[in-house]
């Protein structure tokens, strides 16, 4: 009886459970603060999604766990930082158009540079160790060392301050709820990226091939598609997403530093373990869970903030070892 009930109402029960969990912090937080924290959490979640989705897609299609993703993320941040430095006038100008232009230029420059870096990485290093997880992790870890040291060679070993475009900083005050402008931009950007990825995966022929590749690589190759070209392309896109996340995150946290990739790579791993390796929707849900819970807990019990994500990850591993969503969904 209970079993059929669970089966029939599975979806609704999950949604209700998630809703209750989301509202649970209201017990300890004032509603207005809660809204501010929720927006901060959503923004952080969206930024984490940008990093985690790359890890997830690359693993889903190529079966490669890319430890160098964090270093690519840092490279993106530094390229964005350079563009900001070159066009400082536009960054500091009091016009939305100029600010937006420099922000977009930073993103495009970062994505292109890091995508090229990703192609080189895939062709020169990762390609040699397909099919061997242990060596993949080792070799991408080695690539991380090299990439991070190259950042130190080119940009110096110190932390640098990232300037926020003038019109992006500051807050809106909507009915006494304080909303930071840049967080809204982040949420918007993350949703757009998610929408574009889903559109490509679900509606285009390329997306169909990629999804088929996640399910059965050999079959796709047998059907006459060049899977290795696809691998390189997906690796480049994943690297580009990491770069996008790097630029957005550096403006969010107001700084760039050579080791910044490590911290966010860790978040990305926790996200993909929660959401399920290989699933884009899973990455989004996992990222939002991590972002929201981090913000609530950081407000309620500051010292426990670092532990709560690992705790959630362990709980998910106990009840659903493969993550919330299936690969390829």
């Amino acid at each position, binding site marked *: 009886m209970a079993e059929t009930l669970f089966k029939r109402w599975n979806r609704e029960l999950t949604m209700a459970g998630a809703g209750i969990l989301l509202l649970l912090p209201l017990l300890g937080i004032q509603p207005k603060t809660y809204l501010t924290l929720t927006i901060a959490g959503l923004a952080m979640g969206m930024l984490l999604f940008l990093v985690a989705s790359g890890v997830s897609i690359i693993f889903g299609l190529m079966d490669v766990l890319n430890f160098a993703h964090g270093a690519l993320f840092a490279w993106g941040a530094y390229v964005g930082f350079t563009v900001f430095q070159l066009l400082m006038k536009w960054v500091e100008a009091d016009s939305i158009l100029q600010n937006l232009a420099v922000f977009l230029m930073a993103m495009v420059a970062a994505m292109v540079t890091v995508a090229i870096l990703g192609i080189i990485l895939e062709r020169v290093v990762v390609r040699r160790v397909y099919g061997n997880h242990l060596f993949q992790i080792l070799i991408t870890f080695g690539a991380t060392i090299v990439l991070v040291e190259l950042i130190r060679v080119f940009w110096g070993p110190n932390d640098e301050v990232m300037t926020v475009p003038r019109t992006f900083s500051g807050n809106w005050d909507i009915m006494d709820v304080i909303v930071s402008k840049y967080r809204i931009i982040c949420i918007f950007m993350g949703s757009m990226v998610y929408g574009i990825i889903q559109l490509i995966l679900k509606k285009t022929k390329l997306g169909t091939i990629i999804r088929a590749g996640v399910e059965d690589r050999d079959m796709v190759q047998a059907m006459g598609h060049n899977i290795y070209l696809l691998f390189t392309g997906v690796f480049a896109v994943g690297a580009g997403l990491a770069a996008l996340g790097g630029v957005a995150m550096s403006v969010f946290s107001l700084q760039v530093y050579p080791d910044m990739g490590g911290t966010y790579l860790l978040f990305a*791993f926790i996200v993909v373990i929660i959401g399920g390796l290989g699933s884009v929707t899973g990455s989004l849900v996992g990222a939002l869970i991590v972002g929201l819970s981090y913000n609530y807990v950081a407000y309620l019990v500051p010292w426990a903030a670092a532990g709560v994500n*690992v705790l959630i990850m362990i709980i998910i591993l106990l009840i659903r070892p493969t993550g919330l969503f299936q690969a390829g969904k």
Partner: protein
Amino acid sequence: MAEATPAHFHMEEKRRQYRSGSFYLKLCVVALFLLVPFLFPSFKTVDLAVQIIIFGALVASFDILLGYTGILSFGHGMFFGMGAYCMAFLIGKYGMPSYTHLVMGFVVAAAASAVLALLISFLTLRVKAIFFAMITLAIAELAIVLATKLSGLTGGEDGISFSTPGIFSVSFSMGDFMGIEITGRIITYYFILLSCLGLFLAMLRFTRSPLGRILQAIRDNAQRAEALGNKTFVYQSISITFGCVIAALIGCLYAMWMAYVNPESTLGVMTIMLDVLLMVIIGGMGTLYGGFIGAAFLKITQTFLPDLQHLAKDLFPQALLLHNILERWLLLFGILFILVVIFFPKGVIGSIKGNKQ
């Protein structure tokens, strides 16, 4: 052959062992380390020797996981640090420098690391082996954050400094022997050397036991090993726990030598783990001995790198590029790391062994 019984093979193997050159080479290396305090009494060389011994043993224990079980753990540094912190707690912050507390430090470190290693392996081995790398990385980072944030408990970033008991303390002196004053430091040196030798022999025995053979079978072909009736999960858990407990014990020894622990120098993923990974790759996975070669190479280079930089500055004052590259020595090691993984996946020892066969 009529006398081809297992016992006969065993004797034959033993006889061959005492005849082989590598056996005497190993004896010579041990003898060299025994003589270090008398041959090179300066603090720098003795410290270098301790670092090589400790990291060599640590890398060997890491190799049990990586080379013999096929599992990559980024939490090995955490277990090392756990041992160091247990020692610091028991003879420093929450105890006192006495022999009882010293022994208790080892026992507590072994017990705590065994429990944590079992927990982690139960959590992660149910899924895929690659999850192990991600999850241990997350837990190791969490450990660093906790050690830094809970400063009331762990001393925070400042760490804990303490003094070692009795004959191990710095102020202890036993008088001269062969013109060298036998201080507490030298006794500690021998204690660490002999302990690490003991731990290393234990690991060697472990990998050559039937259990070790099964582990290698699981590493090479997990499905086949399971089909033959071996419970892969149980064996892998045992191996992980064994490696981690040894790492914790080595951490205790390290704390005894440094008489100081802090999060960065004992727990750090990018400090300890990076070194360990470089050492195990350069020395060779799945060899145990490779750890010492990797450790010796890396530690000697790190110690004499500043001298090399000065030399380069004196010899070629104009070559700025050379200076920059020497400043960023990790870049060179990173490239070396990738090249070794691609072209010599067996490392130094593995390649020599492979050529012999």
